């Protein structure tokens, strides 16, 4: 794990941003903390993640009550972050009677 240089880049970048790594849950998943805790999931450029895997990560974030952050790491180690969440829409109040 420590030999994965792209993962190392993500951890380093987060530490530079003031995060503390609380717990490593899997090769590419860990909990980081800065004010509040976040569930991080690392995605490497070019490596596809199945929808079911993505949903499992989101579910884990919901279970842990932590925002899920995808750490997108380019093939040469630049990191970009996105929040991901499951959207559950309720009926639109503006057109409650519409067809």
């Amino acid at each position, binding site marked *: 794990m420590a030999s994965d240089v792209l993962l190392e880049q993500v951890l380093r970048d*987060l530490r530079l*941003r003031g*995060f503390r790594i609380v717990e490593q849950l899997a090769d590419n998943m860990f909990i980081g903390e*800065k004010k509040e805790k976040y569930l991080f999931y690392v*995605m*490497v*450029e*070019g*490596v*596809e*993640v*199945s*929808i079911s*895997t*993505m*949903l499992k990560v*989101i579910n884990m974030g919901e279970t842990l009550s932590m925002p899920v*952050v*995808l750490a*997108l*790491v*380019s093939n040469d180690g630049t990191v*970009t*972050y*996105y*929040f*991901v*969440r*499951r*959207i*559950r*829409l*309720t*009926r*639109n*109040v*503006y*057109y*409650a009677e*519409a*067809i």
Partner: protein
Amino acid sequence: MKGVLRGLAVVVEDVESGRELYRRGFYGRFLGYDKVKREEVDKVDAPLILALYEALYLAEKGVLTVVDENGVEIPPQQLVELGRARIKNFDDIYKIYKYFRDLGYVVKSGLKFGALFSVYEKGPGIDHAPMVVVFLEPDKGISATDITRGGRLGHSVKKTFTLATVLKPAGEVALLGFTWARL
């Protein structure tokens, strides 16, 4: 109400019918006009063009009768077959269209955003930013590039976008929302 299927879209020639459909939930687009406001509908004197998804939805709801150019009725099932023959992933995309419409959202083309649909709570020209919905093919995974590409759709959407897919085998529509995070 009646609409004539011409290619992959349906034209409602009767202006009063067109106005009513547009008022009901911004269905269609008036030929030659864009983003007509609700209070301007009565001033528009033009046929309404419905996308195939819209026409199918309204036909299934019994609101619209679609006919061919000879006036022969085209049942919804025949519109589905046309869609399947011409449009990739038609069934899944229609399911997503129906999902939003059944919940009362206004669904318009996403083409100008580089997306599948733009979805509004109140309507085009009223909402400041639509929900930009990108289609994810059910059997395809998600890549980092898919996410950053989505984040670059349109400048007004604040790097927030939605991926929509249909989960197999349940056939359930799932929406994933992505927002750029400044950590």
